[in-house]
């Protein structure tokens, strides 16, 4: 059997036993059916919902009956709803402050853990510990810890850190940002630790021979060499906090009032509490669009070859 051009997938699949020419084998001689199960599940439960959420944002649906066409009314409603507009503002604050809080700590901690200090093993084990808790567990634990009557407030100084931290609309969002940081810094520190370990020791030796100080080593060797790690970690941090749900849902439920109601929570509450799935889908579309745009932008920054090979950066 001879393969004709253009190569149809069916022809490839049926030819894999009979096509004998070695050259032809190399050209697409792998059976297509190998990719089918993954493509099917991924397409059905990830790609199709992505299209579906766009469709549902033009529908009216209470979550039980049948969705009916509603045109742009859901979008008009969402974009004029003060709660959702405030959720967008809160989300920007949440994403930016989370990043400013987590990134430097993760970098310093990771660089430190990769060094040769005494006690490093102990430090690495202990700082890993938050990773063994699920987000739900972290949310519940901190809710108890920050309880105004029986929690840490009896130990903490009064003033900005005193009183009912989670019940105060002015401070709740920053407390949430702190707890999210507590939970996620260890993961990013691990990324940086892994990144630092791949920096050739010769670079440090050369710089040291040239008389570089510790700070100069950090600034002119470590930071530039960690370029890809910084971009990867930042992408995960920014896109991650954009879509952050579990921990805040458990910790504050979006409250007090709507002080911590960031977009993913707003979407959940709009959809599964108020049963307006169309409006919730419109919020979902906004989330997906911003998330995709941020990923693509950061990926562009990292160079287009990034996805092609892990070796690209070396």
């Amino acid at each position, binding site marked *: 059997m001879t393969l004709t051009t253009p190569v149809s*997938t069916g022809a*490839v699949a049926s030819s*894999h036993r009979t096509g004998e020419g070695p050259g032809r*084998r*190399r050209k*697409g001689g*792998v059976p*297509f059916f*190998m*990719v089918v*199960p*993954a493509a099917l*599940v991924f397409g059905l*439960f*990830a790609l*199709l919902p*992505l299209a*579906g959420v766009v469709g*549902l944002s033009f529908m009216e649906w209470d*979550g039980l009956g049948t*969705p009916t066409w509603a045109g742009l009314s859901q979008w008009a409603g969402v974009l004029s709803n003060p709660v959702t507009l405030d959720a967008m503002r809160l989300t920007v604050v949440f994403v930016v402050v989370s990043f400013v809080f987590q990134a430097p700590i993760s970098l*310093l*901690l990771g*660089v*430190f853990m990769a*060094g040769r200090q005494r006690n490093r093993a102990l430090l690495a084990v*202990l700082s*890993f*510990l*938050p990773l*063994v*808790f*699920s*987000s*739900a567990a972290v949310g519940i*634990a901190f809710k*108890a810890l920050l309880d105004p009557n*029986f*929690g840490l407030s009896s*130990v903490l100084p009064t003033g900005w850190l005193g009183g009912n931290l989670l019940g105060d609309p002015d401070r709740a969002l920053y407390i949430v940002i702190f707890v999210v940081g*507590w939970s996620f*810094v260890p*993961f990013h520190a691990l990324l940086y630790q*892994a990144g630092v370990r791949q920096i050739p*020791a010769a670079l440090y030796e050369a710089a040291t021979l040239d008389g570089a100080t*510790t700070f100069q080593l950090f600034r002119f060797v470590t930071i530039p060499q*960690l370029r890809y*790690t910084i971009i990867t970690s930042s992408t995960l941090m920014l896109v991650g906090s*954009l*879509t952050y*749900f579990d921990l805040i849902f*458990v910790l504050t439920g979006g409250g007090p009032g709507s002080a911590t109601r960031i977009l993913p929570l707003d979407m959940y509450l709009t*959809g*599964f509490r108020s049963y307006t799935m169309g409006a919730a*889908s419109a919020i*979902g579309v906004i989330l*997906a669009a911003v998330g995709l745009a941020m*990923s*693509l932008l950061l990926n562009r920054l990292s160079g287009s070859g990034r996805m092609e*090979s892990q070796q690209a950066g070396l």
Partner: protein
Amino acid sequence: MRRKVNVLGGLAAWLWLAITVVPIYYIVVTSLRKQSAYFAEGPLSIPSAPTLDAYRLVFENEFVRYFANSLIVTLASVLVTLIVSLMASYYLVRSTTPGAARMLRLFLLGLAIPIQATIIPVYYMIVKLGLYDSLPALILPSIAFSIPISVLIIVNFLRDIPGELFESMRVDGATDWRILRSLALPLTRPALMTVGVYVGLNVWNSFLFPLILTQSSSVRVLPLSLWTYQGQFAVNVPAVLAAVTLSAVPVLAAYVVGRRQLVSGLTAGFGK
């Protein structure tokens, strides 16, 4: 040559360590208190009369069932993800048709899709498929959202295997299944372990899918059970924190047993 001590990093590291450890200490000591002692003693004091009452209460309230559900969902998701991703990666790396390259890009696009944004259509589909409130309702979407990262990691590994190895097996008359089993599988084992750890942890900890796609306590998984314990035990904070502690034990055990694998699993695919 020894690197110089990083003073700035060190200070931040030790300060952060204190912040890390205090809440964990609090969780554990509080779970060992009597309910009455919780109201009387300071939050960070050593329990005056440590007790396992809270743990007994949690076990009497279906903890083992939730644990088993989590285990089933996680194992099924990881196993299927590994098999279908390895097969797909084999095609995506070895096929030279333009369609394969486009398909790889489509899979990688999935890395940027926020799960939250798609939850409403997923809910709709699961209801329509008659899977609502069942374990498969959790397994199928978990696999779908695990495939992009798995394919990325496995493809990167398969690419580094010289094409001659595949060709020579072919010439010897091996089928694709045989090549997959005897060549691709052993050589990508580190990648598969990494994917297994990473996907396993994500599925084990997942909260949103169970919250939206299940309802009955018979299909409840561990993270969601923590939330329901919180309502159930209302003022019994030691019991809630005992459940939190217990929920961390499996991951902690995995860390103790396979520390190297777990850490590389968490960082692989994202490293430089």
